[in-house]
């Protein structure tokens, strides 16, 4: 379905912004692949007839572990809390996360946007490109793959470097599209 024109604001009430992480290293079996939800974020889509634009800001301290697969045993609440603490203390450290488009190209049928822009992550700005697609179910989805090292982040490692979070992570948004323009 075409993405409605107008200025749209999206946030956690409309859908999810998630980060998927993988693992690498000789002892990768000991770790977990994680699905982490960013629980505080705000995105805008400006499709009101002028130059289309997309922005996103996210609170680096709002990440919550939703799933963990693999590992030697299932993650419990304490484990999830430990991971969230580690993200806060050692990885994102509460830094600023902000994306601002530099170019947005709608598809011919208006159901997708090719978005290019700059992601500012903890003070390091790098270009990022991704597609946003409106499905027939009325949801807007998109995903981007980012390398932590591109932003000066050292992927978390444990067990003397034999268990590491993979450098590349996948960020995905899945949100309910506004029903009408200007919502």
């Amino acid at each position, binding site marked *: 379905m075409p993405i409605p024109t107008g200025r749209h604001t999206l946030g956690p009430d409309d859908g999810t912004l998630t980060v998927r992480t993988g693992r690498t290293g000789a002892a990768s*079996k000991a770790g977990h692949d994680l699905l982490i939800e960013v629980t505080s974020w705000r995105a805008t889509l400006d499709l009101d007839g002028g130059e289309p634009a997309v922005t996103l800001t996210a609170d680096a301290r709002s990440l919550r572990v939703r799933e963990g697969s693999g590992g030697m045993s299932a993650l419990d609440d304490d484990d999830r809390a430990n991971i969230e603490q580690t993200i806060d203390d050692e990885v994102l450290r509460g830094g600023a996360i902000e994306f601002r488009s530099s170019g947005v190209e709608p598809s011919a049928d208006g159901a997708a946007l090719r978005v290019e822009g700059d992601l500012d992550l903890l003070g390091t700005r790098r270009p990022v490109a991704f597609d946003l697609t409106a499905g027939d179910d009325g949801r807007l989805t998109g995903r981007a793959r980012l390398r932590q090292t591109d932003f000066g982040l050292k992927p978390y490692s444990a067990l003397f470097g*034999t*268990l590491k979070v993979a450098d590349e992570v996948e960020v995905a948004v899945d949100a309910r599209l506004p029903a009408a323009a200007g919502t």
Partner: protein
Amino acid sequence: MVELDHSFSTGKPEDYTWEAILDLDRLIPCVQGGRVVERTSPTSAKAEIKVKMGAMAMTFTGTVEVVEQDDDAHRALMRVRAREAGGQGHANADVTFALSDGGGTIHTAAQITGKAASMGEGVVVSVLDGLIRDFTQRLQAI
């Protein structure tokens, strides 16, 4: 049984290093996550090591004992007998230190059972190698 060999340098006189490594209160904290729980004699201690595995941690508790000590050759054999806290696993090792001026070598013969061993011998070797390499770095400051 996993056997590993490492060398280390301290940049200090052999007599100084010899005295330092035989002092379990100084040696055991050189293992990342290791601490002395109780000194049971001049040559033995109850100890604990907590190994962080990302979100989780495995804790082993047990004893460290100097079972052979050659003061002339500056060679010592230490025996580690540890059990996984709250689990069925064991981590046992015979660790031989042989000193030379400015450093020395460490031969480790270890036997790991339980959850940690279930990851496979290749993983155990990699983790143990990482732990001992880290230990040798910390020995520089002992």
